[in-house]
Every structure is written in C-alpha cells, then in structure tokens.
C-alpha cells in the first residue's frame, strides 16, 4: 500500500502560522531560534522581516521567492509579528497522521483505505509518500533502531535504494525532515505472498496506541480487532485460508460485490493478514498463526456492519472453497457470533 504523511510545514499552509494566516508584506515573520525546520515555499511572498532559525531551510519552488516593500504593504495592513508553529512533536507512529491507498492514483483521488491503527502507519512492505510540493518534519522514535519500508518519496523523488536514501537522510534537508534516534530504511521488497503479509508494526503497538485517543463506544459487545488500539462497534470476520487464497483478489471481490451497494456506503472495511498468537491450553503463548482479519465498522451501533458481515459469511459458505477459504468466524458487537464451515 501507499501511505501518505498528512501534515506539512509549507509556508503557504496557514495552519502553520500562529496568527492563522500566511504572512504578507507588512508582517514580521519569526522562526524560533532553536526549532529545526524545513519549509517548502511554493509561490512569491512579500515580507517586512524574517528571522530564520539557527538551523533550518526554506526550499524554493520554481517561481517562489521573497521580496520586501518599503514601509507598509497596502494590501496587508498594519502588519503583525507572526510565528511559525512548532512541528517537532509529530510522530511517525501516530496513525492519525497517515492516509492509506492501494495505488498512487487512489492517493491523489482521495480514495483512502480504512485499516486498523497498526496498519495506518507504514508497514514494512509499504511505499511511503511525502507530498511532492511539500516539506515536513517527522519524529522517528521507534521501538527498534530502524523503520524498514519499501520506498520513500520526498519532494517528488522516490528512494528505493537503501544507500541512496541513507545518503539523503544524512543531507541537511534529510536531517531537518527526519529526526529522532531510529532510521527509516528503504529497499524492503514488496509483499511477495499472494495470501498477504504481516504489517510488522505490532512491535510498536504501544507507541502507536500512545497517540490514539479512543472514542467511547455504545454497543453490547465492543470488539477489539488485532492491531487496533480501540474497541469498536461493528464486526470482525476471521478467515483461515489454504494455498489458493489471494488477498488482493478477495479484497476486490468484497469491494465489487458488497461495498458498492448503496446501503453499505457508510461502511469502513479493513482486510489484512494478522499473526494471531497461539496459546497452549489457551494461556501459554507458543507462536503465531497467520489469518485474515476483516474489520467492519459503521460509526454507529454496528448493526449495519453485522449485516454486511453476514453477507460476506454467506458468500464464503457458497464460494469459500473456490476462493481458498477454509474457515470464517464472525464476531459482532451485537453479541452474535457464528462459525460456518
């Protein structure tokens, strides 16, 4: 999947300024001395004064630049002192700061995918995208020394060679954009298993959930999907599969059979391979077994989710063997469970 970082540190983004507006020709612009920041400038701006940080950079898009006026800029008014806001605290492992899509085109069209929190953050086989005309600053604190991904795109340049990206990280821009003790490494292969691949973020589960605030839920039996930080109202289908199973095809099947139906418009569905801990006597862990987890939520009580889940179970019952599905278990927050086949 493609995972795109949402925030930016662009000059033109008014949410980056403490006065809520992009500075104009009468304004005095201040970057905090000790804040390291990389700022993308897309167009031309007038400014009265700009105080730069001790370490930082302004990246000038073609046609972008600065000019000064004498005295007040009539189109700007009396002028204010405006500060570029703090961007130091944004964490790589904050699931709220990423958008996921199946293709680059989907990413551009805004066709984003729902996924559990662990998989909202880039997985080990994902392509990571920082928007082309934008700058950013991301804190790479991780539970491990590296954060492996397939590729990273920065300022329109895609890095998939480990050495080239590590060189970029050691450049001035790289150091301003990525900070923290862990290094993002690229060059991981894409997922080569047709039945899907584990995301690999469970090792950072606590860190990921540390930045998530859970909404209160009001259903009979709130469910906790694997890899998710919060209980949800909805349904979970757990699928066991055999050799012929193809995750991507199955995802497409569910999409075209069900999610295009108008009654399921409000549904969010995430489907991925998870590694379920195996326990001896239900207590002592002795390994993991891979299965496919389908998480269905509807933002309400979960009744709609359960209806869809029942449709999916029916489909498994009639076509499961053809699809390589050996077992499908349903849990619903209404309290209903079923284990067909």
């Amino acid at each position: 999947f493609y995972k795109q970082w949402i925030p930016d540190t662009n000059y033109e983004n008014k949410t980056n300024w403490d006065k809520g507006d992009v500075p104009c020709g009468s304004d005095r612009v201040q970057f905090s001395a000790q804040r390291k920041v990389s700022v993308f400038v897309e167009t031309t701006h007038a400014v009265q004064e700009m105080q730069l940080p001790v370490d930082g950079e302004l990246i000038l898009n073609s046609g972008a630049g600065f000019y000064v006026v004498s005295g007040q800029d009539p189109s700007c008014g009396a002028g204010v002192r405006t500060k570029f806001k703090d961007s130091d605290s944004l964490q790589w492992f904050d699931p709220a700061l990423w958008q996921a899509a199946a293709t680059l085109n989907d990413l551009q069209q805004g066709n984003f995918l729902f996924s559990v929190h662990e998989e909202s953050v880039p997985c080990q086989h994902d392509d990571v995208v920082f928007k082309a005309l934008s700058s950013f600053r991301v804190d790479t604190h991780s539970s491990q020394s590296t954060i492996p991904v397939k590729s990273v795109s920065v300022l329109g340049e895609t890095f998939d060679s480990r050495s080239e990206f590590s060189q970029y990280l050691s450049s001035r821009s790289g150091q301003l954009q990525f900070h923290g003790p862990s290094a993002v490494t690229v060059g991981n292969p894409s997922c080569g298993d047709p039945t899907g691949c584990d995301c690999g973020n469970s090792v950072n589960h606590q860190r990921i959930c540390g930045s998530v605030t859970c909404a209160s839920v009001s259903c009979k039996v709130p469910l906790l999907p694997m890899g998710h930080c919060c209980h949800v109202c909805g349904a979970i289908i757990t699928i066991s599969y055999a050799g012929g199973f193809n995750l991507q095809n199955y995802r497409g099947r569910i999409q075209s059979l069900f999610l295009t139906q108008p009654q399921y418009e409000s549904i969010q569905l995430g489907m991925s391979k998870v590694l379920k801990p195996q326990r001896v006597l239900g207590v002592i862990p002795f390994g993991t077994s891979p299965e496919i987890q389908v998480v269905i939520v509807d933002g309400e009580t979960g009744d709609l989710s359960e209806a869809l889940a029942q449709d999916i179970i029916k489909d498994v019952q009639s076509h499961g063997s053809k699809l390589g599905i050996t077992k499908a278990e349903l849990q619903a927050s209404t309290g209903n469970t079923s284990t067909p086949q």
Partner: protein
Amino acid sequence: EMKDNKQLTQPRMMSDNGHLVFTTGNNKDIRFQPSESGRVKVGDEDLTQLLSQIKTNKDEIDDIKTHGGVVPPEVTNKLNQLDTKVSTL
C-alpha cells in the same frame, strides 16, 4: 523522472548553525542581477563597481607589462648624470 530531477534541484536558503547559506542543485546557478538603479552590496561595497575594477586592474597591469610603467626617478637621474658626464668628456 524529468520532473523528479527538477524537484531535487530546488534552491534553498538555509541557516546552518546561524550561518546564512544559499545553495542550488545540479547545474543551477546563483545569479545576482542588479538593475540600473539598484545595487548589490556586500557590506558597504558595491559589487558591480568592484567587479568592473577587477577588469580595469587587469587592463592596467597588461599595459604596464607591455609598455613599462613610468621611469623610476633614480633611473632618470642616473641617465641624466651619465649624459652630462659623457657630454663634458
């Protein structure tokens, strides 16, 4: 790919430990274009004026190298002295 390369060549105004640094990417220049009435100044110095002085200096040096400079006074004196001596012999 063309586009990707372009992106990497974006010029930057950087602050490096308080030093103000202007950089460009591959094959990209830093250009100062003073207008007729506006000057580019480094400290109190007018850059355009000083740069034209470099050429003037070069020309004058070339001239001195080709035609010699003024005759040092001690040479003129000595020549006059000799001239007088020779004439009175």
